[in-house]
């Protein structure tokens, strides 16, 4: 018996307003696992890589994994797969909460959304009953309001994914929110959903997920549980301070990007740290489905400047993007701006770093004050809150910020001030200081991203072993390995944070006992590599050529100004050829036929 997967694909065509169920392609499932891998396989088979991301020929695939909905190890995740309007690459964006597991309980492995509705609609799913309904009453509303509406009109226990005003207005980094505060945040998946006039998907499932070998699965889950409960990162650091535990650690190591990557040590890091947040804002911890870590921060904003409000976040990346990268040390303002990102439904990383880019260009006299409507200087917390609001509404200067930093900086003739790769903004680690991370940024299949191969783990945190962050030796091997493992984690439906504690052995045991497939660790790693390669092939066909495997001039040429890593630059010219070789690609960065054959792709 094959377990984990249910065996059903739900296909919805919004142009024709029709839907149908079809059997899951198990041959693909065996090769591409599920989640990011299987969703990408369907996507790349069905969608022309040159498609305009906002055309009706682009598709949006919701893809939980075979472990999603079980108690394996933080198995509450799914991937949203589409072609990104921000980067032009394949975009898969991950989220947790309760919505992904509910898809499985409704008996669904994949939802493929095609076409474009003629007017705003939302989709309801109750097990095998599907309906497409008029969304005019909730168009313009934020995710909180949408969820309240659907809970009262559709089903009290429904789990919901939706877009906010930013997605409707196609802000290029709009997110898809679920369970109110969780987000498939990056690469503009929400803008694609908005372009399809699809406001929300509500699902209620009363069925179950079965596994092939119950005894072995319970053993594998117990092993993973124990490991996660024994690791200082997953058992202590993340539960106590959330991801914001990193603010002080990364700052002390001299790679907390500050003022649009002009500096790498933020003088006010302590004021925006997880420790400070725990004292000032934290209400309690929260978990996604089946998670034993509980990194989510429920916070309460009681600053007299803002409406009193309970919400979620900010997490580490957000604190960097809306905080240090904008030179802002006002934790309440950062939290307010984070809440606004949640309400409008957009990625705080790209939103904040785009504001930071505008700040640098304003200070350098490139963007005139008249264009912005106000001064926009580093450190101005109120201005950040204002700019985020304008971005979400696409009003005034916000209409330009909504394009992301690359297009904004290019409009003013200075793309070099955009801290991005393949037009997607960097997350919260300066690649000059962690060479493996730099290589990962340059080669990630969705542009700059920390969750495609989190090299910070070995280079800074020493997990699974400590690497010298400044060295280039062996980084190609490590980066490839991390990228491939991450592809596996993203595909089985597991949270990446578990990998601070568990390894490919745990994941293989969970996967094999759930599915009944007799896979070795090597088979799993091979699947990860296969997934990475089909994403790469899609991007190449989409016109993202290997010359774009690069970094902004600032990271390549301007040495770090201060801190322990003073003088460092990203040594990409050394790293990249080694990486292509490690991947078994040609020196031109293109996967060889031999490699593709080895991976059962060609």
């Amino acid at each position: 018996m094959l377990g984990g997967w249910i065996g059903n694909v739900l296909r919805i065509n919004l142009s024709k307003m029709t839907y149908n169920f079809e059997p899951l392609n198990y041959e693909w499932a065996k090769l591409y696992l599920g989640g990011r891998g299987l969703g990408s396989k369907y996507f790349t088979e069905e969608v022309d890589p040159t498609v305009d991301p906002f055309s009706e020929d682009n598709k949006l695939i919701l893809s939980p994994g075979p472990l999603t909905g079980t108690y394996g190890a933080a198995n509450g995740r799914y991937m949203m797969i589409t072609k990104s309007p921000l980067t032009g690459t394949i975009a898969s964006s991950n989220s947790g909460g309760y919505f992904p597991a509910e898809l499985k309980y409704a008996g669904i492995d994949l939802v493929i959304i095609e076409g474009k509705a003629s007017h705003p609609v939302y989709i309801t799913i109750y097990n095998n009953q599907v309906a497409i309904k008029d969304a005019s009453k909730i168009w313009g509303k934020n995710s909180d309001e949408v969820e309240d509406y659907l809970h009262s009109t559709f089903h009290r226990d429904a789990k919901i994914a939706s877009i906010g005003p930013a997605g409707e207005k196609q802000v290029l980094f709009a997110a898809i929110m679920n369970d109110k505060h969780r987000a498939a945040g990056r690469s503009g998946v929400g803008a694609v959903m908005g372009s399809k006039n699809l406001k929300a998907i509500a699902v209620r499932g009363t069925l179950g997920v079965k596994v092939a070998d119950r005894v072995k699965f319970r053993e594998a889950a117990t092993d993973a549980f124990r490991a996660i409960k024994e690791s200082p990162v997953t058992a202590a650091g993340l539960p106590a301070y959330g991801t914001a535990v990193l603010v002080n650690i990364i700052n002390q190591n001299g790679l907390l990007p500050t003022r649009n990557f002009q500096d790498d040590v933020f003088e006010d890091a302590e004021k925006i740290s997880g420790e400070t947040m725990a004292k000032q804002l934290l209400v309690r911890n929260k978990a996604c489905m089946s998670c034993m870590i509980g990194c989510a921060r429920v916070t309460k904003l009681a600053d007299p400047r803002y409406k009193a409000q309970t919400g979620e976040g900010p997490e580490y990346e957000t604190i960097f993007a809306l905080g240090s990268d904008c030179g802002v040390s006002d934790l309440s303002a950062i939290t307010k701006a984070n809440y606004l990102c949640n309400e409008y439904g957009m990625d705080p990383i790209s939103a904040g770093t785009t504001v930071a880019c505008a700040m640098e260009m304003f200070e350098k006299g490139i963007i005139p004050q008249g264009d912005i409507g106000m001064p926009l200087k580093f450190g101005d917390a109120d201005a950040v809150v204002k700019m985020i609001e304008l971005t979400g509404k696409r009003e005034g200067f916000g209409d330009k910020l909504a394009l992301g930093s690359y297009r904004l900086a290019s409009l003013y003739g200075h793309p070099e001030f955009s801290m991005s790769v393949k037009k997607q903004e960097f997350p919260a680690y300066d690649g000059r200081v962690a060479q493996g991370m730099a290589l990962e940024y340059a080669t990630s299949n969705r542009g700059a991203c920390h969750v495609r191969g989190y090299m910070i783990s070995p280079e800074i945190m020493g997990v699974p072993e400590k690497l010298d962050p400044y060295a280039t030796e062996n980084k190609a091997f490590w980066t490839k390995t991390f990228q491939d493992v991450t592809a596996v984690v993203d595909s089985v439906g597991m949270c990446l944070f578990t990998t601070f504690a568990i390894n490919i052995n745990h994941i293989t045991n969970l996967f094999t006992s759930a599915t009944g497939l007799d896979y070795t660790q090597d088979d799993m790693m091979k699947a990860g590599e296969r997934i990475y390669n089909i994403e790469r092939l899609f991007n190449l066909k989409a016109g993202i050529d290997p010359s774009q495997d690069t970094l902004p001039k600032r990271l390549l040429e301007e040495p770090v100004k201060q801190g322990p890593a003073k003088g460092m630059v990203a040594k990409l010219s050394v790293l990249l050829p080694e990486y292509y070789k490690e991947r078994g690609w040609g020196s031109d960065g293109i996967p060889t036929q031999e490699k593709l054959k080895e991976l059962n792709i060609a």
Partner: protein
Amino acid sequence: MAKRIRIEPSKCIGCKTCELSCSFKHQGMFAPSLSRIYNEVFLEEASFITVTCQQCDDPWCARACPSGAIVKHPDTGVVEVIEEKCVGCRTCVSACPFGMIKYVEYKQKADKCNLCGGDFPECVAFCPTGCLTFEEEDEPLRTKILNYVNAVKEGQLEV
């Protein structure tokens, strides 16, 4: 004293692993809708409440059952559905004021928590935060009393 599942809501993080481990053990699959323990998540209030059958001393469900299919074990105090005797009439479902016994479609029987019938309760085994414990003494209650007592004590010291 008999062992019971003790629940301390302040330790809950809303992961629903109790629902998953319960349904996996007793229904053979991960299906929160079939769990015998309920972890409710209130997103707005950031509140997580877990409830399950408290094995009443004089159970409404057992009193209501017309076929004598629900018994309270004299030694453990566990209230259990004897499936062979259950006719699936759902009278118990109506009778329980807490909603802690339900009719399960696939086996056409009433279904409720039996503290895993002598095994260590699966929900407690998998609870990651210690929100759920299985013990004779009601530790959450004792902790609350001590917190209260300490507040009184500190107040007295100030006088």
